C-alpha cells in the first residue's frame, strides 16, 4: 500500500515503516527507558504486539492491575462483606482474574490485621472449575491433569485459604450421575445447529456456576472475560440477531442472575493478559478444544484478523457497544442488609444515582436469560417453551419440528423450564414494593 510521504508521521504507519522505506525516527533504538517511570529498562515480549518495549515490568503490571482495581471499586464489585466465587477455567484470563482477586484479598487481610477495631471484614474467595468432558469427550484425556493443576494453583494461593469446587457440567441436572451425563448428551444431540449447541453449553455452564455459587453461600461470581472476549461477543450477538440483549452481556456487572456476575477484567485486552501470565510465570491449562466449526469460531478468527490490521480494533468494538443502553440489572443492586458496611451502601447509592440505565421491566428467555424484546414475543404460540424463548434461541437451539418441543423441554434442566411455567415476567410490583417497603404499614399477608 502506498504511503504518501507528505502524510507519513511516526506512528502513522504502524508496522509498515520498513516496507515503505519511509524515514521514521525509531524511538526504540535511541531511548531505552520505561516510558512511564523513566527509570527501569522496558520489557520486550517479542510477541509482535503493540506497546512492546515501552514499559518496564513493574509499570506494566501496575497498569493492568490498576485497571482491575478501578473496575472493582467503581462498580462496587467486591466489598468487605462479600463472598466471592471466581470461575476458573485454567485459561489465562481467569488465571489473571484469580490472581488479582487473591492479591486484593491479601491486601484486605493485611489491612484487617493492622487495623485496631477490625471493623471491615475480609471478603471470602472461592474457586469453581467446571468439567465439561461429558459434552466434549475429547477433553477427558487431559482432564485429570487439568484438575490437578487447578487444585495446586488454588492451594498455592493461600493464605487466605480458598475453597475449590470442581463440578461437572451435568451437575445442572441435580446430580453427577451417569443418568445426568446421558441426559446431557441427549440434550446436546437434539440440537442440530452447531453454533446452537456451543451456545447451549455456555448457558448450561453458567447455570452450573450459579448452582455452585448459591449452594455454597457465595454472593458474587467473578468471570475473567476480557475486552477481546467481549469484542467477539459483540459481533456474535449482532450476527445472531441478539442486538436487543447485547448491552446486557457486556457491562461490568450483570445482576439478572441469582448470584450477580462481575467482570473485573473487562477493560484489559488479551495481549496484556497473556503477557502478564508470561511475566509472572502464571501456569495455565489449555484443554485441547474440540474443533469448532460454527459462527463463534468464525467471528474469533475475524476479530483476530482485524486485530492484525489494527491492534486497537477490539477496544473500539467494545467501546461502540458500550454506548448501547444497558439494562436496570447491569449494576449491583442496593441492599438494606445490615451486614453490608455503611460505606458500601453509600457508594452503591451514589453509583446508582448517576446510573442512567433503562428502567424498563423485562421478561427473560429461559434458555439464554437474555432480556426479551417486546416486539419479538408471540403470545399466540401454542407451545409455552417456544413462546417464552428469544428468536435467536428459537432458531438455533430449539428443535424445528413442533412435535419435538415437548421432549426437548423435558431434557432441559429444571431451572430453565421452571421459568417457562411461571411465564417469567419480571414482577414490577414486587420490585416497586421492595423500594417503598419502609413506608408501608401493612404486613405482607395483608398486602393487596
Amino acid at each position, binding site marked *: 500500500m502506498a504511503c504518501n510521504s507528505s502524510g507519513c508521521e511516526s506512528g502513522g504507519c504502524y508496522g509498515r515503516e520498513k516496507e515503505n522505506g519511509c524515514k521514521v525516527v525509531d524511538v526504540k533504538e535511541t531511548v531505552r527507558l520505561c516510558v512511564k517511570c523513566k527509570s527501569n529498562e522496558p520489557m520486550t515480549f517479542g510477541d509482535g504486539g503493540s506497546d512492546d518495549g515501552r514499559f518496564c515490568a513493574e509499570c506494566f503490571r501496575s497498569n493492568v492491575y490498576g485497571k482491575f482495581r478501578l473496575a472493582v471499586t467503581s462498580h462496587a464489585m467486591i466489598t468487605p462483606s462479600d463472598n466471592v466465587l471466581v470461575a476458573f477455567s485454567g485459561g489465562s484470563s481467569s488465571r489473571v482474574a484469580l490472581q488479582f482477586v487473591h492479591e486484593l484479598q491479601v491486601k484486605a487481610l493485611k489491612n484487617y490485621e493492622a487495623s485496631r477495631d477490625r471493623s471491615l471484614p475480609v471478603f471470602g474467595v472461592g474457586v469453581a472449575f467446571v468439567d465439561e468432558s461429558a459434552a466434549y469427550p475429547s477433553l477427558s484425556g487431559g482432564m485429570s491433569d487439568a484438575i490437578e493443576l487447578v487444585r495446586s494453583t488454588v492451594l498455592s494461593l493461600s493464605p487466605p485459604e480458598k475453597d475449590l469446587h470442581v463440578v461437572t457440567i451435568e451437575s445442572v441436572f441435580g446430580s453427577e450421575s451417569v443418568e445426568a451425563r446421558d441426559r446431557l448428551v441427549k440434550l446436546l444431540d437434539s440440537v442440530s445447529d452447531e453454533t446452537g449447541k456451543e451456545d447451549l453449553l455456555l448457558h448450561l455452564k453458567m447455570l452450573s456456576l450459579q448452582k455452585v455459587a448459591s449452594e455454597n453461600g457465595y454472593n458474587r461470581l467473578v468471570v475473567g472475560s476480557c475486552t477481546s472476549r467481549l469484542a467477539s461477543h459483540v459481533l456474535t450477538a449482532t450476527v445472531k440477531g441478539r442486538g436487543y440483549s447485547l448491552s446486557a452481556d457486556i457491562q461490568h456487572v450483570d445482576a439478572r442472575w441469582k448470584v450477580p456476575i462481575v467482570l473485573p477484567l473487562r477493560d484489559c485486552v488479551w495481549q496484556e493478559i497473556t503477557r502478564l501470565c508470561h511475566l509472572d510465570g502464571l501456569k495455565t491449562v489449555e484443554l485441547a478444544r474440540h474443533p469448532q466449526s460454527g459462527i463463534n469460531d468464525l467471528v474469533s478468527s475475524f476479530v483476530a484478523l482485524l486485530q492484525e490490521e*489494527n491492534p486497537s480494533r477490539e477496544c473500539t468494538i467494545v467501546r*461502540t457497544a458500550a454506548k448501547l443502553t444497558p439494562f436496570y440489572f447491569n449494576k449491583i443492586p442496593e441492599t438494606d442488609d445490615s451486614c453490608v458496611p455503611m460505606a458500601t451502601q453509600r457508594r452503591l447509592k451514589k453509583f446508582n444515582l448517576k446510573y442512567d440505565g433503562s428502567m424498563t421491566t423485562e421478561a427473560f428467555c429461559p434458555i439464554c436469560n437474555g432480556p426479551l424484546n417486546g416486539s419479538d414475543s408471540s403470545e399466540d404460540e401454542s407451545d409455552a417453551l417456544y413462546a417464552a424463548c428469544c428468536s435467536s434461541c428459537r432458531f438455533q437451539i430449539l428443535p424445528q419440528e413442533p412435535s419435538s418441543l415437548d421432549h426437548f423441554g423435558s431434557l432441559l434442566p429444571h431451572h430453565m423450564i421452571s421459568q417457562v411455567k411461571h411465564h417469567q415476567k419480571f414482577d414490577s410490583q414486587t420490585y416497586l414494593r421492595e423500594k417503598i417497603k419502609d413506608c408501608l404499614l401493612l404486613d405482607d399477608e395483608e398486602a393487596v
Partner: protein
Amino acid sequence: MERGEAKSKKAGGPPRLCCICNERRPVLKRPKTLQQICRECFYEVFEEEIHQAIVNNGLFKSGERVAIGASGGKDSTVLAYVLSELNRRYSYGLDLFLLSIDEGITGYRDDSLETVKRNELQYGLPLQILSYKDLYGWTMDDIVKMIGLKNNCTFCGVFRRQALDRGAALLKVDKLVTGHNADDIAETVLLNILRGDIARLSRCTSITTGEDGPIPRKYCETLTLSSHTYAYFKKLDYFSTECIYSPNAYRGFAREFIKDLERLRPRAILDIIKSGEDFRIATTTKMPEQGTCERCGYISSQKWCKACVLLDGLNRGLPKMGIGRARGGGVNGGDHKKETKAGSTVKTLESKQCGSLDF
C-alpha cells in the same frame, strides 16, 4: 443445489417439484429460504417481495419523479429492470430516470457506463450522467495519483453520494432509489460497530434516509444472492467487474466475513440487520446536528460538508485533510496531518457506500 438434487435421487422418487407452484421443475434453491423453486416462481417471488417493500413502506406516491442510481452493475440493473416492470404492472404512476455517476476510473467506469447507456435503450428510461470531472474538477484516477491507494475510497464514496444528490436535483426528481440490498446494510452495520460510529449505527438500518434533507433514499431487503441470481436467470445486461481500487477498501473485511457467514447460516445477514434495528442507543449519546455546508449548501453536520473539506484538501495539495480524526476546531479540521491510528481508520461524514453501487 447439488445436495438437494442428490437427496431427491437418493429418495428414489419422482423429481421434486417447485415448492410454490408444484408444477414445474425447480432450477434453484432460493437463497433466503432455501426452498426449491422454479424459474418463474422465483421471478414472481422476487418481484413480489420488492413490490411489498415499496407498498408496505409507502415509498412512492403516484406522479413522482424517481431517479434510479444506476452504475451498470448487477444490483442497479436489477433495480432498474424490476422497478420499471413493477411501475408498469402495478401502475405506480412514476416517472423513472436513470442517473449514473462517472468517477473517472479508466478501465472500469468507462466500460460500465456503456452498459448503462444500453439500459437506457433497453428499458426506455432517460439517462443522466454526471462526472466527478464536471462536478469537482477531479477524476478518481487523478485523486489516486495524488493520494495513493489508501483512503481513496473515502473520496469516491463521499463524492458519489453528493453527486447522486446533485444529479437528482438537476433532474428535479422527488426521490432517489439505490440498489442497496440486505448484504450492503449488514456490512454497514458491522462497519459502524467496527469503527465506533454510533451515530451512523442508529440510522443505517432505516429504509429511508435523509428524510429531512432534499432527497430521501431507499433500499431493499433482498439478499445480494437473490438479486444476482435474478440477474443471471433473466439474462439482464450488466457489467460485472469490481472497481480496480476496491481491494483496499475497509468494507472488504466486512464483506469477506459476511460471505463466510452466509455459508454457515444464510439468515445471519438478516439477523445482523435485525440486531441493528434493535440496538438501543442511549439518548444521552452525543449525536451530530444537522445543518448546511457554508461553502456549497449541501447537508452537513459540520461547518463544511465532507466533500468540500476533501476537495479543498485536494486543491491545496493537502490530501490528508479530512482524513483521520479531526483535531482542534476550525473549518477544515485545521491544518492537521495527524493520522492517529494505524491502518485505515477513517472518520467520514458520509455513509459507508464506498464503491458499492455495484459488485
